[in-house]
């Protein structure tokens, strides 16, 4: 096996990177793929919480890198999906505890064992971000339909180009079709117009996401909610399937989007 390494980054905090990493990983694992997700947010870890695996952490990413344990020992197996593993971040250290080349080495070792490695980047464009993208084959840039988040996404896309990690693909999170209709929110088109990169997913605003995060039960597990379906669609697109974009009440917009390349 040679895993694909995918990093989710955004620049701005709070746009939904961790939730997406959890849900995309769950969706890939539900398709029978062997998946390891890595929390790159050293010092502010919470991917473990969203996945409901907090109480099972013994070793973390920094322990592996500093040689206090073997890679296998830091991989926490999910209780629901036997093919899903988490390598948690250290909570008591900071971003400088690891370097980009440490991440490359770790992922190279891990590549032999799994199909997908999904890395959760911290917010910002400094060390933590550089660590998170160092090993990436592909980067998904996440944004909300808000001017400030889009601005940061633009900056991140520029940095990815400069680091020769492009072209990135875009996930737009927390889209509220009703607000777009009223003209109170940027539309998918507005965002794409500025960022000019490939779109890989649109996730509608959905209160179930917050409830699921609090319970540590990722939404993509059941897939009844629209947001859960959207995450499953992203996973299928990563696997190379052609999946049409969901209808979020605004058919015209999405039909136009499909015609766009």
């Amino acid at each position, binding site marked *: 096996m040679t895993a694909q390494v995918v990093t989710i980054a955004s620049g701005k905090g709070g746009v939904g990177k961790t939730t997406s990493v959890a849900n995309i990983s769950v969706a890939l694992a539900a398709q029978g793929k062997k998946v390891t997700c890595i929390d790159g947010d050293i010092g502010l870890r919470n991917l473990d919480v969203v996945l409901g695996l907090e109480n099972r952490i013994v070793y973390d990413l920094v322990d592996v890198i500093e040689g206090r344990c073997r890679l296998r020992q830091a991989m926490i197996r999910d209780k629901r999906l036997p093919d899903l593993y988490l390598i948690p971040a250290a909570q008591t250290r900071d971003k400088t505890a690891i370097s980009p080349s440490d991440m490359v080495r770790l992922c190279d070792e891990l590549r032999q064992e799994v199909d997908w490695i999904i890395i959760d980047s911290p917010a910002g*464009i400094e060390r933590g971000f550089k660590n998170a993208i160092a090993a990436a084959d592909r980067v998904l840039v996440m944004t909300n339909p808000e001017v400030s988040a889009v601005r940061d996404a*633009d900056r991140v896309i*520029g940095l990815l180009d400069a680091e020769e990690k492009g072209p990135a693909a875009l996930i737009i999170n927390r889209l509220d079709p009703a607000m777009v209709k009223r003209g109170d929110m940027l539309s998918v088109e507005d965002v794409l117009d*500025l960022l000019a990169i490939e779109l890989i997913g649109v996730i509608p605003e959905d209160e179930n996401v917050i409830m699921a995060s609090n319970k540590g039960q990722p939404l993509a597990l059941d897939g009844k909610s629209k947001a859960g379906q959207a995450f499953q669609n992203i996973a299928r697109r990563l696997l190379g399937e052609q999946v049409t974009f969901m209808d979020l009440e605004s058919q015209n917009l999405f039909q136009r989007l499909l015609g766009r390349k």
Partner: protein
Amino acid sequence: MVESPSLIQIKGIRDGLLITLDGASWPELVNAFVKNVDERLSFFQGARVVLNVGLNELRVAELSTLRDQLSERGITLWAILSESSVTETTAQNLGLATRISKPQPVDFKVAPEVLPEDAAKWVKGPLRSGGRILFEGNVIVMGDVNPGAEIVAGGSVIVWGRLRGVVHAGAQGNEKAVVCALELVPTQLRIAGEIAVSPKKQAKSQPEIACLKDGQLVAEPWHK
């Protein structure tokens, strides 16, 4: 391998250490430098470093590798000084500074007379947030200039795309400089000493040209 001490010069400056690498090929310079650092790790640890790379033309991979090597040793590389425009662009792409003192109003290394009037820098767009182009002649961007990006040109600026960032044309006081774009909606527009912001969005977008008329910045539709 004989390490010539003249390859590397280290000097303390207000903003950290100024290190000049010159007189050999880039891989040799990097090797010598990294070796030097490893020998005196306690001296370098935690240092903020400016590298003067002279005429070396460096690409992203070379600079980012060096930056990673240094950061593994606890050294922050924050600026690159170079006489090559390729290296400067690379450094800017990586978010590194390319001059160490606060920029003077605008101070290009080449005096404007030296440069032929019609020299232009070709920039492949889009120029994204955080991107910065500084050029003593004219600048042509093929693609959008996004909000958060900045172009400072001694001459005129032409954007074949949407201009939504900040542009300063005629930055050395050339009042004949113009700015044109397929859609002219900059965050801020400066020509020579005048500053303007875009008026509220118009109904229909069209190519426009901005210039100075009687000391006033005006934008007009492009029909010619």
